[in-house]
């Protein structure tokens, strides 16, 4: 009975009761999942992907939601199809975790921080399978091996926070698989992870699906991942399904406008092949500003030489520094006016620290930073404050980087006020101009951050950074948290500003496709050092350092015909950047293999 779907969602409608009346989370969605098939659900943030899947688990009720209509038909193991909407919670409990497994988005918070991994893994087994402690443990061990967690015995005794993000996500997967569910729902299982880990997890899930024949409902907003994984794709938009089809159909012949727009906004690795300078993306339905390639200038703005930043690890009775985290180690580069230098690399390799060190938001240990002729390292507190007029920062998380208690007007005006502008009217005019600049309605000036969407918030953050007319903006993962379409708009905005104002960016990101799109130069970082530095074209088309090559290989491409080989990628875990006091790392030496393209020749630790 292979064509008998495992789950069928029919005309699902979910409402949330809020203070301002009911909010519709999902309006009208129908689709089905067949055994052994991967169905990807894509769509913008807030389009109802999670709510649909939670409805299938009947977990929406706990979040204040209510299934207002439709049917959720589920084919139970022992034959019989039941409508989950009408099932009572006690029966649901025997289905949840047992017949339907679910993997959640955030590996950091999906695990209970105070129980060991082992305990959380065995809990479901003992409940649904009635296993003894020992049996459950054995099964847990088996699962841990299945998801390829090194040293599984030890891990079982550890707490979630002692595992890395990738491992945690694998534990969550193991947990979902524990009772061999027939349907596995994966709600953005890789969004928070590094490319390399993401590649591993995707490969793992693919393998597990093939081995066990589980049906998978895979939720994501990342088209590249969809291209990697999906058999069929469901596109959701504002609580509705707008399109459904096989991967190839969707990618190659999208029917619905929204799908088209979405695909157009996805940067694809390799798109910029052959183009030396970045250029804005062409977005569907947005009248193009027609900025051609952005060339930049040859005049150096920021010179960084031998930048080294370490964090002290204090321990012992006298709180003496016993070791150092070598977060940034002997980093040098030059950024010219009007150009963008991207720093890429895995989580923890020191990108953010490097960016913050340039602004001296963390104090570097050594090195030389020169911004437009000013020796930043030599400045005192006051001088530094003044120097920051020329360099600003945009942070990763648009929500966290805005004060939830302040109106946007005040937040954008704050830097102006800090540098002496106090006239209220003038301030307001300036801010209004800035809002225009980043294409936000002026009416937003009186709003609070939570009233805006992620993209709008990030634009506010950019407006704040622009307020002082800086020469340099350090954008630390400025678009990582955004939806693709919004990301595309923000990227375009940044590039337009660069073209018009001649801004320079230090662009920090882990997303290779985005980096390819925006940068003139790229520095690949590993363990605090730049292992490869050069013009974007050179680095992307001709990666020389083994780490760069591995990284490139791991990036999924938003094209179902270019799926990565099935062979599992195996990345070496990054060695610890912590060294005892007194450890003197060797200086970095580079080889210039083509003009401006440098490769680290000394040991990088990779």
């Amino acid at each position, binding site marked *: 009975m292979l064509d008998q779907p495992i789950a069928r969602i029919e005309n699902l409608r979910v409402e949330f009761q809020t203070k301002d009346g009911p909010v519709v989370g999902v309006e009208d969605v129908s689709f089905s999942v067949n055994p052994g098939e991967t169905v990807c659900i894509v769509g913008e943030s807030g389009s109802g992907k999670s709510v649909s899947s939670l409805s299938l688990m009947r977990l929406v009720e706990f979040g204040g939601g209510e299934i207002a209509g439709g049917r959720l038909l589920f084919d139970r193991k022992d034959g019989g199809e039941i409508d989950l909407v009408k099932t009572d919670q*006690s029966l*649901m409990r025997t289905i949840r*975790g047992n017949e339907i497994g679910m993997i959640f988005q955030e590996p950091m*918070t*999906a695990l209970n921080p105070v129980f060991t991994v082992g305990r959380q893994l065995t809990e479901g087994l003992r409940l649904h399978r009635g296993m003894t402690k020992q049996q459950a443990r054995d099964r847990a061990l088996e699962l841990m091996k299945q998801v390829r967690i090194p040293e599984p015995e030890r891990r079982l005794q550890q707490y979630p926070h002692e595992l890395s993000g990738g491992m945690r996500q694998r534990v969550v997967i193991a947990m979902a698989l524990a009772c061999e569910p027939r349907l596995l729902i994966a709600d953005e299982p890789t969004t928070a992870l590094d490319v390399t880990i993401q590649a591993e997890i995707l490969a793992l899930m693919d393998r597990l699906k093939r081995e066990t024949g589980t049906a998978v409902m895979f939720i994501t907003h990342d088209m590249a991942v969809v291209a990697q994984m999906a058999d069929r794709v469901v596109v959701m938009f504002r609580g509705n399904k707008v399109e459904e089809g096989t991967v190839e159909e969707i990618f190659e012949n999208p029917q619905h406008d929204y799908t088209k727009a979405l695909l157009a906004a996805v940067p694809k690795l390799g798109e910029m092949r052959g183009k030396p300078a970045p250029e804005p993306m062409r977005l569907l339905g947005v009248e193009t500003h027609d900025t051609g390639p952005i060339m930049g200038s040859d005049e150096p703005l920021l010179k960084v030489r031998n930048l080294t930043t370490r964090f002290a690890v204090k321990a*012992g009775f006298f709180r003496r520094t016993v070791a150092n985290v070598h977060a940034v180690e002997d980093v040098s580069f030059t950024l010219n006016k009007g150009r963008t230098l991207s720093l890429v690399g895995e989580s923890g390799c020191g990108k953010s620290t490097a960016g913050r060190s340039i602004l001296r938001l963390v104090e570097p240990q050594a090195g030389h930073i020169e911004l437009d002729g000013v020796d930043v390292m030599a400045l005192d507190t006051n001088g530094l404050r003044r120097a920051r007029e020329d360099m600003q920062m945009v942070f990763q998380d648009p929500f966290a980087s805005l004060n939830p208690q302040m109106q946007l007007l005040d937040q954008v005006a704050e830097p102006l006020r800090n540098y002496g502008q106090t006239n209220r009217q003038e301030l307001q005019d300036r801010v209004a101009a800035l809002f225009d600049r980043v294409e936000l309605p002026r009416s937003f000036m009186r709003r609070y951050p939570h009233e805006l969407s992620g993209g709008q918030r990030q634009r506010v953050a950019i407006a704040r950074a622009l307020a002082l007319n800086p020469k340099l903006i350090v954008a630390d993962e400025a678009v990582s948290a955004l939806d693709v379409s919004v990301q595309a708009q923000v990227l375009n905005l940044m590039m337009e500003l660069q073209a018009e104002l001649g801004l320079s960016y230090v662009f920090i990101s882990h997303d290779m496709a985005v980096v390819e799109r925006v940068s003139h130069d790229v520095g690949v970082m590993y363990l605090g050092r730049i292992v490869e530095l050069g013009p974007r074209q050179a680095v992307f088309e001709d990666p020389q350092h083994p780490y760069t090559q591995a990284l490139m290989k791991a990036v999924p491409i938003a094209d179902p015909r270019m799926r990565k080989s099935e062979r599992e990628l195996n990345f070496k875990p990054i060695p610890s950047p912590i060294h005892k006091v007194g450890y003197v790392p060797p200086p970095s030496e580079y080889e210039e293999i083509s003009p401006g393209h440098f490769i680290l020749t000394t040991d990088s630790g990779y």
Partner: protein
Amino acid sequence: MLTFTIRRLVLAIPTLLIISLVIFLLLQMAPGDPMAQVPLTVPPEVKEKMREALGLGQPLHVQFWKWLVQVFWIEPKVFIDFLTRDSWLLGWLPDTSLYQGELRVISWQTRSPVMDIVVQRLPQTLWVVGMSYIVGILIAIPIGIYSAYRQYSVFDQAGTFVTMIGFSIPPFFTGPLLIVIFSVQLGWFPFIYDTTHVVNDWDSFVYQLKQMIMPVMVLALQTTAQISRFMRASVLDNLNQDYVRTARAKGLSEAVVVMIHVLRNSMIPVITVIALGVPGIFGGAIITEVVFSVNGIGQLLITALFANDLPMVQTLTFMFAVLIVLFNLIADILYGVLDPRIRYD
């Protein structure tokens, strides 16, 4: 963790020395005189003689130094002697006999070692104040959990109302109120606490319960009011966490989800609040103790204060300070123990 603990303990020593000095100076500055309770019929010259006999005329630094020696050197010796002689814990060790009859901290009021009286007061303080703390917590935690689980329900609203009332009514009102109702009108419970009562069989245990119940209730009301608020807030925080959803997705029952997953996490901040409240037990509950004649440490402190018995007040407040510092440390350590994410080194 161990170095953290030791480090904090060592750092606590200068803190405590400064605290004891400040307390000492404060008490010296405070008006009042140990002769306040001596009847006015005793002539001033005699009072002056009595003052001299108490050592009041000595210079301040001498008095302070003497007190320090007594507390930090002589009393520990007595304590070690006690441990090796009489306690069941270390009684098997040879008797150390460190104490050779040096002058201990002597109360002006009773002319007996302060520590002996404190030890005498501990049982009733722990029975009544300690028990009320435990009872208060035991009532508060379920209330907090349920209020949070059913936020804005009638139960929650009523809970808020009652706890706020409980918080805003002072024990000098609730105490006599309970006495009038349960002792005078109904005659159910005795209200003068019998500190000599020994529990050795069922009946005496019942009597002990009866005499404890009113003071315990009066004090528990306040504890409950505070802890249940904390508990509610903490559970509310945790109910919205992702791991709760994960637990539910595993098919765990609500009871398991709330009572195991959520409870453990919610207890982390509450436990530290509870730990920080423990010194209060040893500090006693002054008004309640007086109303029910419990004569615990609170009553000891207040009588000592009114009698201007400086050595007693000084030693008691110092012990209280030690407990505060200690339980601050314990709260921090507990935090680390309960929450595996916290590490202290």
